[in-house]
């Protein structure tokens, strides 16, 4: 078994470079690679393109990378809840490509699966369709969308083993599995790292083939955006 383990987040992100295209798993603040983001913040990086469903909040997640002006372009489906993001967008410092969430998920999936383009009904008749090929199949219109790939993909799992196999928990899975496959170098951080052989092969969500580096994360905050409870 190939051992993918690296010592910590700093070692995992050591060769990330300015101008790189990065993917970050997570939906809102759930399932985001907290440790990798912290390690990236310590590096002198700029002009990054970040592909992530959301852009964090002002003081957490990718929002922290925006504060440090590391990001040139965001590719996301929803970017509310972030005042610094709004300021940089309105001032023209930040470029943003907004795409439908399912199209984002499928473009990333296609990138990892070797499918250069696909047709989807989402966005037909809207500004998302501008400049894109439209074709009719069985009486309905579809848009041609291209794959997305990244130089580095950062994902976060609940458990992982030294072979890079990953298991996610709850709705923290979200974009993480597709992004793991779409990164040239995929860096996985996990809450619990175990030796190869300890995870049940029947229950692996992301096979280790997609993961180049894995490390045991620490000090997870797991912030909650909307804490809703009943009595």
């Amino acid at each position, binding site marked *: 078994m190939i051992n993918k383990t690296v010592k910590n987040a700093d070692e995992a992100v050591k060769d990330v470079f300015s101008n790189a295209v990065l993917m970050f798993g997570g*939906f*809102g*603040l*759930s*399932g985001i690679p907290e440790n990798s983001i912290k390690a990236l913040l310590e590096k002198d990086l700029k002009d990054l393109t970040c592909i992530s*469903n959301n852009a964090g909040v002002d003081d957490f997640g990718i929002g922290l990378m925006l504060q440090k002006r590391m990001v040139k372009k965001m590719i*996301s*489906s*929803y*970017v*509310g809840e972030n005042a610094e993001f*709004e300021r940089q*967008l*309105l001032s023209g410092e930040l470029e943003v490509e*907004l795409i*439908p*969430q*399912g*199209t*984002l*998920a*499928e473009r*990333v*999936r296609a990138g990892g699966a070797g499918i250069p383009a696909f047709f*989807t*009904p*989402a*966005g*037909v*008749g*809207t*500004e*998302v369709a501008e400049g894109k090929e439209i074709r009719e199949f069985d009486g309905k219109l579809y848009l041609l969308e291209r794959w997305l790939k990244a130089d580095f993909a950062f994902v976060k799992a*609940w458990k992982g083993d030294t072979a890079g196999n990953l298991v*996610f*928990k*709850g*709705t*923290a*899975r*979200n*974009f*993480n*599995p*597709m992004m793991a496959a779409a990164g040239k170098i995929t860096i996985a951080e996990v809450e619990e790292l175990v030796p190869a052989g300890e995870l049940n092969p029947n229950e692996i*969500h992301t096979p280790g083939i997609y993961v180049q580096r894995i490390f045991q994360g620490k000090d997870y905050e*797991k*912030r*909650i*955006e*909307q*804490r*809703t*409870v*009943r*009595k």
Partner: protein
Amino acid sequence: MLNKDQIAQRIAKEVKNGQYINLGIGIPTLVANYIPDDLEVVLQSENGLLGIGPFPTEDKVDPDLINAGKQTITMTKGSALFSSAESFAMIRGGHVQLTILGAMEVSENGDIANWKIPGKMVKGMGGAMDLVASADNIIVAMQHCSKDGQSKLLKECSLPITGIRCVKKIVTDLAVLDVLPEGGFKLLERAPGVSVEEIQSKTEGKLVVEGEIPEMTFEV
């Protein structure tokens, strides 16, 4: 006029046994409170869950378990968890049978606008474009008029479109209306105390009125 809970309560009557349903943020989320106990339905959350349960009690809050509005939730018995790609595969594939969502405008041919207001900060469309492009049945929950009194049921949407020819039914604070395949809003029911004339005056698009229009009734 209906309040938000009554709009949700009325929409809940459209839910059928055995359906898989996606509820949008706002009034649509409230629909879950009014689905009769004898119906077995499954609520889908596009961030990767089939089987949304009620909000958790304080001791059961889990940051790894949220809905598409980023609220903490629980799971019902028989739930399933999956990735975002799988989630939208089941949406685009037509497996999610009913989508209930809010709107800023609906046109008489069923176009919907609900994601962007020119000149205001654009937050993004999230999953709305995928949902409206795919579900067989799309019901819109919204106020009949905007805050400044403008009709939201229009000949053509003035705001950027989220999806074309997709809305089947609209429940507002004033009325229940079907969007006709040939175009036009067919008035089905009036809110208690609201006249056909008032609905007519507040509907900019083509309103189709045939025969007596009954008043909605609510079981208490």
